[in-house]
């Protein structure tokens, strides 16, 4: 078990003939992911490192039974790429692309209501179930298969940092995923926490948030009401000046809302073990999780 992806996940890559698409499709394949197809309109019949390319997601799914997609297409075309994957009724779409206009994502978000496809991202590192399936741009070797920790984060390299510290402490991971740094995204913290709660192999969770919006506050309240697995939380951006966009489009403190302090308070009040300093996250997890699992 794990959440959302496993060794049976069959992945197609939208934008596989681009430089990024080609590289990351190769990296995922090398890790052991079942990359079964690529999609680039007009390039059907080509192969990218033995992976067959199709003109459309629907066609690729018909011929290869792909059930998940990794999107690595430029921002102007990414929203449409998501909708194409949704219309082809894939189970999972992981959108790596950074820089999609917010208005496009609003339309996608509303257009996806009532559809069964799960979207992870955009502007995210992807998802990995160590040892089974990697759909994304994260470095595979830092992960440790077999659980018991689930990791969910709004960031990319910060997630790698967290995973690395867990691995160093001998704490393996069930599934690690980044939900993306954009203001409008697909899968949210609560979706992931809920899945981790349901997953018998996941015994503990690390949740990594950052300034902007109120997703961490909502997640903290949800954890208090619904989870019996221990959660360690970290928030980036205590020193971020208000009104400035800190790299991620969604990472901004505006009108006094979305501050790191408010998020940390919400976490503490809801029984989450707050990590005060990133350097000791692995040790804190070891301490908290060893008691409880």
């Amino acid at each position, binding site marked *: 078990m794990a959440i959302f992806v496993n060794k049976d996940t069959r992945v197609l890559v939208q934008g596989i003939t681009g430089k990024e698409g080609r590289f990351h499709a190769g990296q995922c394949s090398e890790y052991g992911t079942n990359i079964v197809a690529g999609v680039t309109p007009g390039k059907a019949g080509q192969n990218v490192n033995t992976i067959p390319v199709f003109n459309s997601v629907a066609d690729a799914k018909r011929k290869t039974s792909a059930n998940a997609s990794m999107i690595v297409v430029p921002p102007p075309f990414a929203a449409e790429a998501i909708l194409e994957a949704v219309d082809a009724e894939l189970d999972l779409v992981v959108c790596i692309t950074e820089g999609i206009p917010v*208005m496009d994502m609003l339309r996608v978000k509303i257009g996806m209501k009532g559809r069964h496809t799960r979207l992870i991202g955009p502007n995210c590192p992807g998802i990995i179930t160590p040892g089974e399936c990697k759909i994304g741009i994260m470095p595979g070797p830092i992960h440790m298969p077999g659980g018991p920790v689930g990791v969910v984060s709004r960031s990319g390299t910060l997630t790698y940092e967290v995973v690395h510290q867990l691995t160093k402490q001998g704490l393996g991971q069930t599934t690690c995923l980044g939900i993306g740094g954009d203001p409008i995204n697909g899968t949210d913290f609560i979706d992931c926490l809920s899945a981790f709660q349901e997953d018998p192999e996941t015994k503990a969770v690390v949740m990594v948030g950052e300034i902007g919006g109120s997703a961490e506050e909502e997640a903290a309240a949800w954890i208090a009401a619904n989870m019996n697995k221990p959660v360690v939380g970290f928030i980036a951006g205590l020193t971020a000046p208000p009104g400035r966009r800190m*790299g991620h489009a969604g990472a901004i403190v505006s009108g006094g809302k979305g501050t790191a302090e408010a998020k940390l308070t919400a976490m503490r009040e809801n029984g989450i073990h707050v990590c005060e300093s990133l350097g000791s996250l692995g040790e804190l997890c070891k301490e908290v999780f060893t008691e409880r699992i």
Partner: protein
Amino acid sequence: MKIHEYQAKELFRKSGIPVPTGKTCTNEKDISSLLAGMQTPVAVKAQILAGGRGKGGGVVLAKTTGEAQKAAEKILGMQLVTKQTGDEGTTVKTILLEQGVDVAKELYLSMLVDRDHAGIVIIASRDGGMDIETVAAETPDRIITVHVNPLLGLQGYQVRELIYGLEIAPNVAKAFGGIIRKLFSLFMQTDCSLVEINPLVITNEDEVIALDAKMDIDSNSLFRHSDILAMHDSSEEDELEAAAASHGLNYIRLKGTIGSMVNGAGLAMATMDLIKQAGVEPANFLDVGGGASAEMVENGFRIILSDPNVRGIFINIFGGILRCDILAEGVVTAARKIGLSLPVVVRMEGTNVEAGRKILADSGLTLINATDLKHAAELLAAI
């Protein structure tokens, strides 16, 4: 991307949203000839991107042409300090001279992307001209909020909700409703993240006019709005931030003494926090991105070193796609090229980290190697 009031009003005018008659002026010599054709009163308004212009003395309503002349001369070229500019203030390079309007009623109106509801929210209040955050805090019942589904668009009942809620007189309702609809269309067409009119006024002649205009456009959408991109005014940006942006680096200048260079926005924020926790203050946010090249590292160094407050640098890289040995080569080359003299703490982790550390150690440069983040914090505290 924020645009100036006069630019937003130009977009309003093109969309059929009434704004006062006005002219921009960038040269003191032109003031008198521009004022000659105008009736009094005249509003003289500093055109800077920061908010709080009125309180800072950047907006004057002049009753006579003489007063207007004086105010315009004073404001054009002034160093305008507002709550958003910082203590140094911003030089006013453009002023807007506008025909005064006979105001009967002031309203507040804004539209913005609502990340929590994944839609557009319209916020309106009868208390125009006031700071909306104060209104929201003190008299929340006087604020009307309407959520609009961007796929369905603005509905008639939603417009009526605003009209009734703001107690708009029946003879003005049609004009008011028209403005709401036009503003919503403009919002959607230009990929706005925020449009704010404070105040939106009703005149004694029952006209509805946007006295002010603030627009913020989603930067991610600028590839499809070349007309708006052309409005970009980088003169108010921090010099170093503008230079960094031209190199594709995501840099925000802060007031501390420890510069940092990090790959990834989340890790960059966490690194700033770590610097602060070590007892020193971060001098910047700098995300060199996931695919940083040796050239980007060099540019990053130059930007950080251009800030005279910087006393030390912390490089924190988690190598994934960007391998540590490649990064280390970049750091060593850049440090040699620039003739780096400040202490640099390097913390690397991830792909090929051993090879990377060896390159740093063999370089002969005074780079301080941190084994992990805790160690890095100790080293930073000692700078």
